[in-house]
């Protein structure tokens, strides 16, 4: 029998929208603050963790193994290993899955796993050509050589490369993530109005959940060095409306496209963590499990269709457990783009698509909106890439407890053409 993996607790930072310039906290700052607060409420000491696993799509250049950096900063001590995993938008979910794997193998009993990214801190880079020129410059030995080198510098070399645009571009097909969402909108005939309506709906759901205090429970407030308190996700708009969104210009396919910043997820900074434990650790430390991770699945598809990844990852789990989408009490499907979520729902309803791509006879039917992203999603909350996969698992469990549900599925699309899904059950 496989060893069970329990979710003991979880917490995250507020997701802070990237505005002008770097945000108030680095990725490691955020992960440290949320993790320290989460560990503080555990009966065990940080030093008793077997490992810390952190998903991060773009760690700072001086903190490439940010998982170890944060473990040390949280006071886990020298002897707790820390490592970093990277699977683009699902890095946080990958961290959970790596923890699950190690616990099932018996290599770890007690793991802190989660994800983080602070995209507002993404660097400006020199172009390849500029890098080559600089290498030459550093090799110059005298004034004459330096002058010659300067003369050979084309001014266009000085234009920086925006790191985040590189990160959000598929390197294989050269399309921006938003352009892959345009592909799906084209494929399934999704209109701008449908996307904008979905986006407004997401904002409204987040506002309602915030007002009801559903988010405050999972958020660790942050305090800046200047004494500013960040207690809530700050990207959500109370005044979001279809009319206002209709005014925005398409961003990814300029002029003719349908995807705008308003119906895309926001670029944000944030971190999310879960404490995962084996049955032995639960007993040893007297822990109170809140849930269990029952199953997980990774899937891949054409990079240009990456937004359909959740469908491809969810289907094998549904099949293994003999479930239909609406047998699950709650769904989280990460909202990279409104068009991409709508496309997933269309695919679940589309017999042709399911036959062709998923090898099943008939479409299983899409989960209904009453159980999908009930408290809104990344379009309104923000999508700190590495953190989102962990956030949706944490929030899924919280919603299950709140609504008295038993089973839920968290799923996420992954730049590069992949999808991830995780089946979670509550433990009473």
């Amino acid at each position, binding site marked *: 029998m496989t060893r069970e993996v329990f979710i003991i607790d979880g917490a995250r930072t507020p997701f802070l929208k990237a505005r002008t310039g770097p945000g108030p906290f680095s990725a490691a*700052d955020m992960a*440290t603050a949320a993790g*320290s*607060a989460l560990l*503080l*409420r555990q*009966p065990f*000491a940080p030093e008793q963790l077997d490992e810390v696993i952190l998903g991060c799509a773009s760690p700072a250049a001086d903190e490439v193994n940010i998982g170890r950096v944060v473990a040390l*900063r*949280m*006071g886990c001590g020298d002897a707790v290993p820390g490592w970093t995993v990277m699977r683009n938008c699902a890095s946080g979910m990958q961290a959970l899955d790596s923890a699950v794997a190690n616990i099932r193998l018996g290599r770890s009993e007690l793991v802190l796993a989660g994800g983080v990214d602070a995209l507002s801190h993404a660097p400006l880079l020199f172009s390849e050509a500029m890098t080559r020129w600089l290498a030459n410059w550093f090799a110059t030995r005298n004034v004459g050589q330096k002058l010659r080198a300067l003369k050979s510098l084309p001014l266009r070399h000085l234009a920086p490369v925006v790191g985040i645009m590189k990160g959000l571009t598929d390197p294989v097909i050269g399309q921006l993530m938003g352009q892959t969402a345009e592909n799906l909108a084209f494929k399934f005939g999704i209109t701008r109005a449908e996307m904008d309506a979905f986006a407004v709906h997401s904002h409204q759901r987040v506002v309602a959940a915030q007002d009801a205090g559903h988010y405050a429970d999972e958020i660790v*407030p942050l*305090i800046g*060095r*200047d*004494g*500013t*308190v960040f*207690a809530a996700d700050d990207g959500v708009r109370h005044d979001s409306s279809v009319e206002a969104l209709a005014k925005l210009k398409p961003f990814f396919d300029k002029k003719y496209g349908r995807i705008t910043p308003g119906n895309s997820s926001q670029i944000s900074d944030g971190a999310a963590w879960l404490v995962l434990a084996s049955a032995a650790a639960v007993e040893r430390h007297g822990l109170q499990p809140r849930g269990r991770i029952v199953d997980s699945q990774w899937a891949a598809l054409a990079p240009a269709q990456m937004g359909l990844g959740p469908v491809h990852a969810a289907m094998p789990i549904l099949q293994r457990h003999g479930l239909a989408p609406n047998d699950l009490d709650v769904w989280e499907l990460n909202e990279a783009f409104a068009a991409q979520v709508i496309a997933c729902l269309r695919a679940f309803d589309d017999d042709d698509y399911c036959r062709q791509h998923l090898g099943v006879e008939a479409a299983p039917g899409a989960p209904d909106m009453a159980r999908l992203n009930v408290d809104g999603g990344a379009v309104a909350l923000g999508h700190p890439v590495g953190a989102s996969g962990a956030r949706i698992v944490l929030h899924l469990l919280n919603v299950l407890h709140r609504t008295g549900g038993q089973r839920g599925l968290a799923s996420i699309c992954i730049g590069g053409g992949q999808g991830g899904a995780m089946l979670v059950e509550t433990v009473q």
Partner: protein
Amino acid sequence: MSPITQQTWQHWRLRYEDDGLAWLEIDCAGAAANTLSSEVLGEFSQVLDALDARAPTALVIASGKGAGFIAGADIDEFASFDSVAAARGFVERGWSLLNRLAAVGYPTLALIRGHCLGGGLELALACRYRLAVDEPGTRLALPEVMLGIVPGWGGIKRLPATIGPMAALDMMLTGKSVDGRKARRLGLVTDCVPARVMDAAARIMVLSGAAPRKLAVPECVLRYVINGPLRGKLADKARKQTAAKVVRENYPAPYAIIDIWERYDGNVLAVPAGEPAALEALFASPTTRNLLRVFFLQERLKAFGKDGAFSPRHVHVVGAGVMGGDIAALCALRGMRVTLQDQTVERIAPAIQRAAKLFERRYKGDARRVRFALDRLIPDSQAQGVAHAELIIEAISENLEAKRSVFAELERHARADAVLATNTSSLRLEDIACALQAPQRLVGIHFFNPVAQLPLVEVVHGEASDPEVLRRAIGFVRALDKLPLPVKSAPGFLVNAVLGPYMLEALRCVEEGCAPETVDAALVRFGMPIGPVELVDTVGLDIAVAAGEALAGAGAKPPPRLLKLVAEGKLGRKSGEGYYRWVEGKAQKGEAGAFAPELADRILAPLLAAAERCVREAVVADADLADAGVIFGTGFAPHTGGPLQLARSLGKTRIGTEPGIG
């Protein structure tokens, strides 16, 4: 016959390597730190003889102790001299020995790791090279001035020659220490290196044959001018700066240092006996005796923590106001993990802001250490830290019911072995402790504002307090590098009990028509760090009224003007106006009027009386501890040796007739 490669004395070890490089380690027997006593100097003379007999290619002098190079001359020995001749002999011995070291024919290097103070730095200055180890504990200073004495072993001569007179006078007149990196910037050490390469660096440097430090041409010219024609001008400037801080009759030593540098080539022995800078004058000065006494009092307070080292890994602080927040920041600064509790995150945020400023100031731009300190300070609005902490300090407002309910709650969730402490300044410990199932667990740990600056912390024992808990509370105060003063639970303990009547008397003078500026000037002239009226403004007028009631009982009448100002919302510095107007943290003062010495005497009299009462009522164990507490808790004029020492010297007291130290 192979040559002897090692020679050992009681306090020194000399070892020759095959290539003739000699390593000399000082390792004072039976002591934690190296100090230069007559005995250690006597052996050093033998070491130099041995080196003469077999000249090394070069000599490295290092410490054989885990911590510290040399802490200075042996103060115990110095304080024990009962005649100026004995003192002169001691100075002469060190002076000529270090001159001998400076004149040896082989290159010498002092490898400085940890503290290098006073005579220790003078020894290092007599070497050709100095190499500092890049660690926070490496501190170099000539702190003699703080003891009312002067560097007598060549420091006044060699420090200005090494780093220039301006930087040197600054170091000698303030006693301030510099770390290895600053020392390198000043040119005080040739280099500053990590411990992992210190031995290799010492060897390479001492055998290099290089000049200890190359001076640029403009600097050479500047040196020449300052040491020649400008010397007198610079000395006058230093005298003026010193006069802005202290007067010569209270503090002769800094003036003596300037004189000795300007006129006697750094040699105190050359000053004729009649001069104020002469050894005779310094030896006879009560200030010197008193400052030595203060030094020993400080050592005595430090020693309270000796049998109870206790450095909690996790401290929980309840209440994120100014006191609670600053206590939490201090704990984080000293490497402890701290949870800071208040009702909301918004109440905790200002404390984090202040802490960030403190860390940035203390770590001087070392961004990594600032970040780690902030990581250790965890906002905790849910009181999650209570269950983990080894020590919990309550620092909420002075409300008995509120404190009782806090402690009842804390006791339910805290670890059974956690120390429970209150920072109360005006409530009875026993009244708070009765809310506990185990009242013996409660002690007082009373910090003073500003927490990061004031060295004293009163550790308060109630009637029931468990001695073991007290021992740990004292150990904790030492772990914060503060000075613990054990006091009995009594209104105002020691410090506030003496400050209250003193401030009240000052306010009465103001009430009688004396300008606040005049009152403050009189006490600053006496030697207080801050005038009493300004102190009331700083503490807060509302606090002063409340404390006055708590200390004197509801019957006592506060001065009418004080009540009127409080009623008008003029609470002092924090509200922008009290007895003074405050702009950007500074009191706006007019000219002080003329005053007679009697004004200070009158205002000090209640303080002296209260200190005496505290000894009589056993709030502190003895008169020396009362003096120590008042000096380190209030900054009371150190040159007087403390209030009771002052009263004794004025013949105004019956108690404390035991002879003072020194």
